[in-house]
């Protein structure tokens, strides 16, 4: 079993004093990140289309020591309509990572508004067909995607169903810790109930896991690792560097179960 722990994103100003020094230049952040973690979930790719040159530069900076999970661009997951052209473009940008075997997964995170409708099922199927040969992971926020047929469909395609940790609020996808691919994927969004619906993408993830909660996360990760060759764990509670602090704690806790 291989457990890889990292964070969702790395380029945050409020991580100064936590992961980066006060004088660390922005261009040096990724290098420092790679010295501390073995995997990273790239999330700038959600906001803007990645290009091959940019990705190649990241591989160079991290000297092949960092694996990347790449969050699919919003035009693929949050916009209805024809996605094929953009999907092909996005996939092309990941070629370098794939060739160097540094691509952990392509993460498709669908919003709460992505309901279980025939159109959306077709949308998902189209995406998974295009990205078929790459390791893919799907995260649903809406609880309508919890049918046995969805799970068995992902299993047939070897697509990971994202395990998540988020506030216990009605309507949100159930907590899944299942094996549908040869790797497991856990995203930790924090348990901030108060600002989950009303907050923005900073306040929603403003949460610091307690030591007891980290212990529970470790148990879930160990369970996932029993049936998956690789498990990728990403802390998305990035505000004030909480993701980094929590990831370090989890790394420490899981040291004993790592080979």
């Amino acid at each position: 079993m291989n457990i890889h722990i990292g964070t969702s994103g790395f380029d945050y100003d409020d991580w100064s004093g936590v992961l980066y020094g006060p004088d660390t230049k922005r261009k040096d952040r990724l290098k420092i990140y790679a010295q501390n973690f073995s995997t990273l979930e790239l999330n700038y790719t959600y906001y803007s289309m990645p290009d091959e040159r940019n990705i190649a530069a990241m591989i160079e900076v991290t000297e092949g020591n960092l694996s990347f999970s790449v969050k699919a661009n919003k035009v693929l997951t949050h916009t209805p309509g024809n996605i094929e052209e953009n999907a092909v473009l996005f996939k092309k940008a990941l070629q370098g990572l794939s060739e160097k075997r540094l691509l952990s997964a392509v993460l498709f995170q669908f919003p709460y508004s992505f309901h279980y409708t025939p159109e959306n099922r077709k949308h998902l199927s189209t995406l998974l067909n295009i990205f078929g040969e790459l390791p893919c992971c799907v995260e649903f926020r809406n609880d309508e995607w919890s049918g046995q047929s969805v799970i068995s469909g992902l299993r047939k395609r070897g697509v990971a169903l994202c395990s998540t940790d988020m506030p216990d609020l009605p309507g949100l996808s159930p907590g899944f810790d299942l094996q549908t691919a040869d790797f497991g994927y856990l995203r930790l969004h924090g348990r901030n109930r108060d600002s989950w619906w009303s907050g923005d993408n900073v306040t929603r993830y403003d949460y610091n896991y307690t030591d007891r909660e980290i212990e529970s996360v470790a148990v879930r990760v160990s369970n996932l690792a029993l049936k998956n060759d690789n498990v990728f764990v990403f802390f998305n509670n990035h505000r004030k560097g909480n993701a980094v602090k929590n990831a370090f704690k989890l790394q420490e806790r899981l040291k004993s179960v790592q080979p």
Partner: protein
Amino acid sequence: MKTTIVRVSVSSFAAGIAVASDTSLKGKPFVISSASNLRAVVLDLSSEAQKDGITKGMSVKKASRIIPSLRIIPPSPELYKKADHIISDISGKFSPSIEFGSHGRFFIDISGTSKLWGSAIDTAAKIMTEIRNSIYLDACVGTASSKTVSEIASSVAHPYGLISVRHGSEKHFLAPQPVPLMPGIGPVISERLSIVGINLMGELAGISDRHCIKLLGSGGIKFKEKASGIDTEPLFTEHARKPSIRSSIINQTDPESLEEAMMILLRICEDTGFQMRELDLSAMKVSLNVAFSDGLVRSGSLESTGPLWSDMEIFHFASLILRKIKEEKRTKIRILTLDLSKLSTSHYQVPLFTHPSVKAEHRLQETMDHLKKRFGMDSVRKALAFAAPE
């Protein structure tokens, strides 16, 4: 306080225990069955055997034709009992409120324990880990606000994993699940619903009460409510249900004939009756649950006007139930479960003015119990029970 139920179901319980006690079986195709019997059926199997098309209930003869090197492992009821005890102890650490089935299936009410164990998903993950670490068995776990939803979640998680359904999300979670996953709905009801285009629980939840009764009878409303996420059934914990005494026999021979089934029933009445008398109890109610080889389950119960104490009294009631069930359904029986309830703690007394044959039966029962206590359950049995296939 919100109710949170955890359903744990150990996958391939008997096969898992076989591997745990003999690691040479790991990764090999094998089935659990009585090797000595020509009519034996597959009771459980390894995932490797499953991959090659062997299924539960298949005859061992046929299974051996599919995989000639197939290993046949006899059932180990003692080990199963031990494993169930260990799982029961593990569950007891998390909550005192447990409804225990058998073969690694149970419900735990963890409501109000979050300060101790964390959220529902955290607690469930810990239970899975403890079972794995203690007896090397994999479990499917579901958590939800009710027994039904948690049980369905654990079925969806099969063969290994965890699904935690959030409070308020029950209806959405159930809507896309196939109807046969609903506890109590077997192939016959599923087929009947499928004919009218009802294949998913959401579709069942959406029909009118009138339509539901027309399709499934008055009992169908219960399924419709459950498909909508409405289920208020409490846990039948040892404390809540007063001690009910239960025994099961898994048939390895699939008795088709009523006579053969009666022999097995007498055997189970003897085992359950002995347990009851050991506790100085007598029962007023006899319930019988019959699982057929096609997956359908039928049950019935009868109440007596007076306390039932001897094996033959219990058998009399149980046989009436079995006879009725077998009249309606002639399929092979796989599991018989007998429950004695409405127990009375007052020790049974033979009425003063009673027929001498009743007194003789009472004395015979006491003598048999005495021998069983000293020399084991199989040291003495009624001739009919001895004739029951092993």
